[in-house]
């Protein structure tokens, strides 16, 4: 055990030496007795605790560990740190991507904020940590006092599955649950703040200092600590209202797709993004659907109510909580039966709230209805522009989600709403930074971009940026869609970039142009040798687009090409970056 009193302690240097020689040899028990004793003495003599001088006793240490994909958990972690520091904690924030269990095992106070992704999976960058945690040889965690905040979306079957897993596993490994786990839906902001305050209170040492307040410095070297970012100028609560300069469906006549390119005028001060970031869009529901929902519960849309449903409530996503609540509210057992795990998934698969109401008609009061509906969550879209190339504009590439089920035409709330906008309309936006999907800081580094459909959006931003900043790095684009003639998104721009050299290579896969299907992963396989070459030259691999239909197969293909180990190395080197949804 090394010296305990820091040079900064309020003693003369030789006093510090003496104390250290003494306390240094003492065992934990002796030490905590001593601290308790001293505290007691002070209390007895009613000695005023000195103010301005350095803290009388070392601060309580707190580690805030997060696992995040799109930054919500990360933002909450940073907020929690601010709060903790205010309350006198020595708090630090740590990304699961950089955390080692051994170090975690040594922490005393631990807040874990983790999101769930895929179908109940951890965020990509937390995957390794989670594997270790769930492994049989995971270290015991006695002495760790923890609390879990789980982020999720009730729209998904495995709501907050990762948070739950972490919570249970820590307990199983002997750690002490210091506050109850909370599972938060997309409207997490306020609840998270409240939970954080309570949890910090629980961790705060009772006055007078309890033995717990021993100064145990955990050395986090190697585990990069996440630094605070200054408050964003715009966020979901105070978005930017931006006007549409131009909006066009990029798919040619006869296409089966509808992919709109939208250009927003965003010259507002404080608005800043970089290629790789996402933009949050606060959309509105379809007025016709609002009426249908009201109608289905025997309400006629009073202006205020309609307005509320139009802009503030999620009136489409059929979640288990909604079915549950509706069943309880109406006392309908047939509805209740649908909320059971066995039946819910099948029932909700291609249904929406309006179907639940229409298939189990009851009349509700306005308040009952509002009570059932969660707030309308914003949607994220990868930024398709670069400030360097498109100065005061922000571009998005949005695929209009439309399908049909149970005799109803369905429209994705945000995407179809955006697709319906006209130049001059305004839309509420905010920037959702994504520090983990950025161009290499060294602009001479080669990049490999793999995307299908709207997955090409950030790559348009990347190449536009590199072209505008005249960077020398080689670049290779793999793009996939359905039909060459109608779906080759931004074709003319790619041709220009190829001509100028801003883009070095392009490979395309159009699945429906020939009898057999051809996808990007097939093109990757065909270029295996060249790809290996680029990777060994230090290329960063970017994958963007649909998780289920593309990213997984691309991952398989890359594993084939580079080998398990090879791909892992690239990943840990931070050169395999994915922005998938």
């Amino acid at each position, binding site marked *: 055990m090394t010296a305990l009193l820091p040079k900064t302690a309020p003693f003369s240097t030789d006093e510090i030496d003496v104390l250290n020689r003494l306390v240094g040899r003492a065992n934990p028990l002796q030490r905590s007795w001593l601290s308790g004793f001293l505290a007691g003495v002070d209390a007895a003599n009613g000695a005023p605790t000195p103010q301005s001088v350095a803290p009388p006793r070392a601060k309580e240490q707190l580690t805030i560990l997060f696992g995040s994909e799109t930054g919500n958990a990360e933002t909450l972690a940073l907020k929690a740190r601010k709060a903790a520091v205010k309350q006198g904690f020595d708090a630090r924030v740590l990304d699961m991507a950089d955390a080692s269990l051994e170090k975690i095992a040594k922490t005393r106070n631990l807040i874990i904020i983790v999101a769930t992704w895929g179908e109940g999976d951890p965020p990509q960058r937390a995957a390794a940590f989670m594997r270790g945690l769930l492994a049989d040889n995971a270290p015991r965690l006695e002495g760790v006092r923890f609390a879990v905040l789980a982020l999720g979306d009730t729209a998904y079957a495995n709501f907050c599955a990762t948070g739950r897993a972490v919570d249970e596993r820590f307990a199983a490994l002997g750690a002490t649950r210091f506050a109850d786990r909370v599972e938060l839906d997309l409207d997490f902001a306020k609840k998270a703040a409240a939970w954080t305050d309570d949890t910090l209170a629980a961790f705060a040492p009772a006055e007078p200092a309890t033995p717990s307040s021993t100064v145990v410095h955990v050395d986090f070297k190697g585990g990069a600590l996440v630094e605070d970012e200054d408050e964003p100028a715009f966020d979901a609560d105070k978005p930017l209202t931006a006007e549409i300069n131009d909006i*066009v*469906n*990029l*798919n*040619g*006549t*006869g296409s089966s797709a509808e992919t709109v*390119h939208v250009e927003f005028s965003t010259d507002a001060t404080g608005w800043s993004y970089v290629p790789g970031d996402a933009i949050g869009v606060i959309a509105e529901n379809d007025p016709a659907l609002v009426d249908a929902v009201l109608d289905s519960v025997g309400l006629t849309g009073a202006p205020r109510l309609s307005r509320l449903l139009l802009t503030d409530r999620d009136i489409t996503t059929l979640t288990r909580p909604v079915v549950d609540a509706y069943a309880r509210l109406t006392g309908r057992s047939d509805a209740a039966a649908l909320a059971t795990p066995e039946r819910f998934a099948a029932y909700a698969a291609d249904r929406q709230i309006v179907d639940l109401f229409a298939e189990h008609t009851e009349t509700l009061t306005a308040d009952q209805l509002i009570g059932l509906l969660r707030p309308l969550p914003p949607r994220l879209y990868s930024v398709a522009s670069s400030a360097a190339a498109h100065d005061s504009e922000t571009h998005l590439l949005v695929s209009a989600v439309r399908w049909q089920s149970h005799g109803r035409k369905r429209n994705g709330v945000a995407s179809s709403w955006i697709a319906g906008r006209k130049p001059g309309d305004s839309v509420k936006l905010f920037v959702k930074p994504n520090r983990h999907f950025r161009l290499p800081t060294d602009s001479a580094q080669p990049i490999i971009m793999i995307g299908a459909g709207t997955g090409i959006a950030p790559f348009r931003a990347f190449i536009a940026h590199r072209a505008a900043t005249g960077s020398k790095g080689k670049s290779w684009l793999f793009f996939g869609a359905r039909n*060459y*003639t*109608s779906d*080759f*998104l*931004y*074709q*003319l*721009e*790619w*041709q220009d970039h*190829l001509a100028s050299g801003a883009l070095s290579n*392009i*490979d*395309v896969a*159009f699945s429906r*142009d*020939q*009898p057999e299907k051809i996808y990007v992963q097939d093109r990757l396989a065909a270029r295996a040798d060249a790809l290996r070459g680029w990777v060994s030259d230090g290329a960063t691999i970017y994958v963007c687009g649909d998780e289920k239909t593309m990213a997984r197969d691309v991952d398989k293909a890359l594993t084939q090409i580079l080998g398990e180990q090879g791909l892992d190395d690239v990943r840990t080197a931070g050169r395999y970056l994915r922005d998938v949804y």
Partner: protein
Amino acid sequence: MNNFIPKYDFHDFTVHDFTVHDPMTDKRTKNEKIKDASRQLRGGIAEGLDEVATGAIAEDDQYLVRFHGTYLQDDRDVRGERTKKRLEKAYSFMIRVRIPGGVVTPAQWLALDTIASDYANGTLRLTTRQTFQFHGIIKSNMRRTMQAIDAAVLDTIAACGDVNRNVLATSNPHLSKAHAAALDLARDFSAHLLPRTGAYHEIWLDGEKVRDKSAVVSDDVEPIYGRTYLPRKFKAVVAVPPTNDVDIFAHDLGFIAIVEKGVLVGWNVTVGGGMGMTHGERDTFPRTADVLGFCTHEQAVTVGEHVVTVQRDWGNREVRKHARLKYTIETRGLDTFRAELERRCGFKLEAPRPFKFERTGDSLGWSKGTDGTWHLGLFVENGRIKDRSGHTLRTALREIAAIHTGEMICTANQNVIIANVTAAAKKKIDAILSAHGIAIGTSSGLRRNSMACVALPTCALALAESERFLPDLVTALEDVLDRAGLRDDDIVIRMTGCPNGCARPYLAEIGLVGRTPGKYNLYLGAAFDGSRLNKLVAQDVDKTGIIGVLEPALAAYARERHDGERFGDFLVRTDVVKPTTAGNQFHADVRLRPG
């Protein structure tokens, strides 16, 4: 690929000049220079096919691929929207198959039908020159489509380009020995005049080899064509009187079967026909071919070969608009041409033998051959074989091909003949047709004698609609015909979207040639047997204008015609139009009527 063995030896004569041209003084057209530099039609085609960022190929290669039977096109219907959508033009390729005499086996039909849905736009297009075209094939599918065609033992070599094109023969070899001989001659001549370059195989079939830039450009690779091929396209046909279904006078070279006492004694040779002209340029005109003389069956291919070589050497390589054989003959004179031809052949042509054509067009419906087998001439409107609700022609023909044991023959009038059908199969075929809503012999005399070129949206040269407009116009005219009592009379009407004349409109009793969207020039007075060109009667007329001119003319024809008198001849006799006695008189004594 049907690798044929040439049946005839090449004649010894020297291929015309291979002098290296001095760029300063070289007055040859751009096309000539591209051919010259193309390393026997290779150019940069193979490299262009591998470029994925564009659906097009380099400009020079766009000209070279024609020799391989394909054209780069773009969908003109959607041109307007593309740039805003950040998309290049909607490029795709048209592929034209080479089928001398138009005869395919049912198996080949099925293979082509599969290609239509696998790679093309879901339709087969019968052309005015006895073959198929595919439209809408994107670049990434070009090699595999060519390979599929090759797998069907067909090719597209020289289906377009400045070479001898697909050779026509009066449809249906089963009708007589002469018909069979006509098909043989068409096949032999087509094979004999095929380019010998390996480019086609390298680029489309073998793939890799083509990367070898050092491909030999020796002058003897093309013993007949030489390094720069022909100055312009060259078209040959074979006709068996009394049917002039191939429009013998519309082509550069023609052979007319001369049958005496039931035996084929040889061929009358025709030269210098052609349709193409340019609006407002009087020195360009359609021209009916001249009858040059008579040759024996054995001499035919040799004569044809030297018609080609004379045109190769005498044809105009400096003014492309005047490069066709018809202009060579206009400038040099028929006798000079014949003399040079006979010099090269090493024998003289005899005087033409008498012959008589009665009609153009096809005989449609069921007919019984001398050997007792059946033949069905099936009308295909504008040659477009596709399924539409209630009229699923493409499926019907596919089902027929699946059970058919004879041949299927593309006619020169965009129709198909199902040839050599047994009495038993005949019933099945009738059943299939009616099941798919296809009636035989119900269309009006005007419709079954109608032809329209492709034009929009694929044809780059179209000035107006054609294939997509003629059917409506005919429907409108059918009311006029009903009122005049002419519904069942054979009257030839042909429309093209520009003056190039792909549907041979200048040989139609009613010819319509596109000028601008919705507006056409109306030509009347051609001979029903295809021997006389028509004449301009009204300019820039729209649908109502066309009907306005035709209605009184048809009414008068119904009232005042002599029996058996054809519409075109009637208009000449009654002096509605002056007869066009020769191509160079096409623009003469035109009397325009207000449209």
